């Protein structure tokens, strides 16, 4: 799908308005997510400067200039060496006619700390602030183009989970499941997975985070599979819980409780969008889990934003201040991020990607029941 250039220009203009409101003189883009959001172009290690007035300047390797300018409609500065690249950034900053220019820099997963530290060293006269205040208000509300791309990512997530369900049987390793699923979903159109797939089996289903190891999946294992395919930069996130063999009553009860919690959250979002905060949802979840007898076994952090980033604003497990975010129309969310971890029974999650429109639309739809396989 082609997004008109006017959409990118509008995003840049809105960012510049926010920069001026926040007294930020310029923003340095270092992440692919934001570079893509503002230009539609895809570069390995992108660099772009957006001043609070005037046109942004991508900074690219000399041989890429023609393509970048054609794809973005922006005039690029070029480099052939690291000093030339730094020089392009520094000369721009020195051109800002202020004693202490304020520059917003992304301080996220995708921005290595060493880059920020060296940026500060090289530009001691610059006040560095977090670009979240500029970027998050824009990116957390998706436009129709973004929703279309996320729908496609959601379909790929369903396809990937279907493939995982086919593969799960006693004797296969977690790593082989992950390998096969990733190959399959990329052949079907995913550009990549946004995070290494979780295939957490047996005791490892209790874990908060996951991966896929050489562990062989055995009869009786609970297996928690979490997949995040990316379509044209946009992520979907899906998690399902499987039992290899027949599920026990405690496993069925725990899974049912989690499913009910997810359904309740989605209902609440539908009823109270533009009013309810992430914190209120979390409180209700805690009360619900307590009433179900799972107090202390459920990990907080049920909801997070998703889009170009597989976890983005609101993202309360990393940025507690995001608990105060109101769930608003236009957001795309992952619901079911955290695990209900019960020793002896297993770990349980059902995670889906949703779009908060007039109604809540599921972008992932794979069967939500506790799946018995093998």
């Amino acid at each position: 799908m082609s997004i008109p250039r006017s959409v990118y220009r509008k995003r840049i203009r809105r960012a510049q308005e926010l920069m001026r409101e926040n007294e930020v003189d310029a923003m340095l883009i270092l992440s692919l997510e934001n570079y893509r959001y503002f230009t539609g172009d895809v570069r390995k290690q992108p660099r772009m400067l957006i001043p609070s007035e005037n046109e942004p300047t991508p900074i690219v390797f000399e041989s890429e200039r023609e393509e970048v300018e054609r794809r973005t409609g922006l005039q690029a500065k070029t480099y052939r060496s690291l000093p030339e690249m730094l020089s392009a950034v520094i000369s721009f900053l020195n051109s800002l006619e202020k004693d202490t220019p304020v520059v917003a820099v992304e301080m996220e997963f995708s921005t290595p700390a060493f880059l920020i530290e060296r940026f500060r060293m090289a530009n001691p006269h610059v006040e560095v602030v977090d670009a979240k205040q500029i970027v998050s208000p824009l990116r957390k509300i998706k436009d129709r183009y973004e929703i279309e791309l996320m729908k496609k990512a959601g379909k790929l997530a369903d396809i990937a989970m279907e493939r995982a369900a086919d593969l799960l049987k006693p004797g296969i390793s977690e790593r082989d499941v992950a390998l096969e699923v990733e190959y399959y979903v990329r052949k079907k159109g995913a550009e990549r997975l946004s995070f290494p797939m979780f295939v957490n089996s047996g005791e490892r289903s209790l874990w908060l985070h996951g991966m896929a190891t050489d562990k062989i999946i055995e009869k009786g294992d609970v297996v928690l599979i979490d997949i995040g395919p990316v379509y044209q930069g946009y992520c979907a996130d899906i998690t399902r819980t499987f039992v290899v063999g027949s599920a026990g009553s405690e496993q069925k009860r725990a899974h049912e409780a989690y499913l009910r919690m997810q359904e309740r959250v989605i209902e609440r979002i539908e009823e109270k969008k533009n009013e309810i905060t992430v914190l209120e949802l979390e409180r209700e979840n805690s009360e619900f889990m307590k009433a179900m007898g799972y107090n202390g076994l459920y990990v907080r952090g049920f909801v997070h934003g998703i889009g170009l980033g597989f976890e983005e604003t609101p993202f309360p497990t990393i940025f507690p201040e995001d608990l105060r975010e109101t769930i608003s129309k236009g957001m795309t969310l992952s619901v079911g991020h955290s695990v209900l971890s019960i020793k002896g029974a297993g770990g349980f999650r059902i995670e889906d990607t949703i779009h908060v429109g007039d109604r809540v639309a599921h972008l992932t739809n794979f069967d939500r029941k506790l799946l018995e396989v093998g």
Partner: protein
Amino acid sequence: MAEAEMEFTVPVSADEVKSRIRDMGFVGRCFKFVGDVSRDGRIWRVKAPMSAITQTKELETRVLSQDPIEWEAEGKHLLWRGVFEVEESEEGTKIKVRLSVEGLGSMAPIINPMAGMQIEGQLRYFAKKLREELSRT
């Protein structure tokens, strides 16, 4: 060698300015890359990441001339030089600051291209801090 210069005026007397900027401890504390100075101001301890990048943890300072005030701060792979020209003006005291920096020894080819780009920012911070500190006296 990378050089940059800047001129500004502070609302204090030339004698006061001179007495402050002859103190290498005071000068060192106006640089962002200096983490700490020795009690007598002779040694400037370089902050990370600059200390790691230049492989220079300390700079030893000396005043080379009193009028204009010229100084240098030299470490294993880094040499900073500064000149302060001080002149009475209607608004107080006009100060012209000239800074230069160069890499030394085996690190010179690595440090010098970077120093050329960064000296203006270093000077802008230094001049701002110097102006603030002197105006406070």
